[in-house]
């Protein structure tokens, strides 16, 4: 019973933490735009919680560079599982147009495992919403796979 409730609510209340890891603000403002009246992701229970320790979804925008990859790693580590990582925008996916710049390590998946890739430069808010929905779908599949983690928690 409790397990059911927990699993249901895990897909019903994803709290975001957004880390701009060196993007051009394009994707950042689109991510923020998702919270605003015209897109209002709070419909899906999304809150921009800002604190990795409370967050379930990490939204990363922008290329990873040599300095902020540590930060990105640490934020990832401070998030309690289950967690979904969403990389947004060409830069976040592969380094985009900056792939060959000297200070660019590359896409987010060079540092942390990424669950959903949202293409676009910048990705439209619709695309980002799609990304979150996709991430939640993936979470649901994980629950079906029923990792020992969720079992133990519910017990």
């Amino acid at each position, binding site marked *: 019973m409790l397990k059911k409730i927990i699993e249901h609510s895990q897909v019903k209340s994803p709290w975001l933490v957004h880390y701009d890891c060196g*993007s051009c603000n394009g994707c950042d403002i689109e991510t923020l735009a998702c919270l605003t009246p015209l897109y209002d992701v709070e419909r899906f229970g999304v809150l921009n919680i800002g604190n990795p320790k409370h967050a379930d979804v990490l939204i990363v925008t922008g290329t990873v560079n040599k300095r*902020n990859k540590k930060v990105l790693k640490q934020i990832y580590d401070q998030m309690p599982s289950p967690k979904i990582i969403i990389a947004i925008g060409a830069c976040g996916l592969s380094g985009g147009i900056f792939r060959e710049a000297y200070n660019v390590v590359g896409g987010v998946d060079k540092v942390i495992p990424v669950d959903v890739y949202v293409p676009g*430069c910048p990705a439209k808010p619709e695309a980002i919403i799609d990304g979150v929905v996709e991430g939640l779908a993936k979470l649901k599949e994980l629950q079906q796979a029923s990792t020992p983690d969720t079992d133990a928690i519910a017990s």
Partner: protein
Amino acid sequence: MSKTIVPFGPQHPVLPEPIHLSLTVEDEIVKEAVPAFGYVHRGLEKLAEKRDFHQMIQVVERVCGICSMIHAMCYCQGLETLMNVDVPRRGQFLRVIWSELHRIHSHLLWLGLYADAFGFESVFMQFWKIRERIMDINEATAGNRVIVSVNQVGGVRRDLSPSKCEWILAELAHVEQEMKDLESTMLNNYTVKKRTVGKGVLTQEAAYELGAAGPTLRASGIAQDMRQLAYEAFDELDFAPVVETGGDAYARGVVRFRETFQSIDLVRQAIARMPQGDTFVKVKGKPEGEVVQRVEQPRGECLYYIKANKTKFLDRLRIRTPTFANIPPLAAMLPGMELADVPVLILSIDPCISCTER
């Protein structure tokens, strides 16, 4: 004895972008603020050695997503002077229209974040709701919401049909109306004034000596605006810089608020006076020589230095952005403020770190 050091950023909910400030506070009064950078640096100036000068347009557009159009415009102006191309008049007007639209959406975005910085969530929502109209205009006219990518060396890539112009004017009318609804809140609300008036005061002298730029400078009573250089079609538009004398966070808010109306007006003028004709000219050959180009971004003066050597790769590209000029004033205005005011003050210079670090 009661000293607290707060690592403010790089990942922090009130910071739209990764900048780090080591704040030393006593009873939440900031004693010292040491900024740290490098979380956004990509090194795209050096990318000019790998991309030819046409492709570099798309690169400089992504120096900063919020004022991408103006970056690209400045870059193209520079190349046009090097290759002495004359942009057709209509092209110049279109550049003005899109750059002013960018200014509007940047200021609306800023007003929202600013309201959020002093914890006024509903105002944040309102401004961003208004902003969506501008984003729609961008997408409908230029094909993308944020990075419109309309510039090319010798003009603009897209044109505006009369019907589109009509529609833009109608949308802008809405925007203006909705802005007016929020005017009393932004300018007269008691709590807002409590949080902004007298916070981070920058006297005229200080602003001048610390080299502030853009609205930060104009809020301290110095009427300096690169648009006075009358680049593109500004020579035909009547325009006077918006100036406030308060020099505090409140004044900066007022300047940007009024500039939004001004930009709306400029777009109207431009649409009204725009002649028919081509939007661009084909350019041949390669650039040579060096040039310094200055334009007014939403955040202030932006400066491009371009050195070309008659190959398709530029010799040197140097970008100096307004936020870079506004960091020293920020560091100067933080000490003595409350910790709760730090976000307001950081926002009050409208930082664009990705511009600054490129």
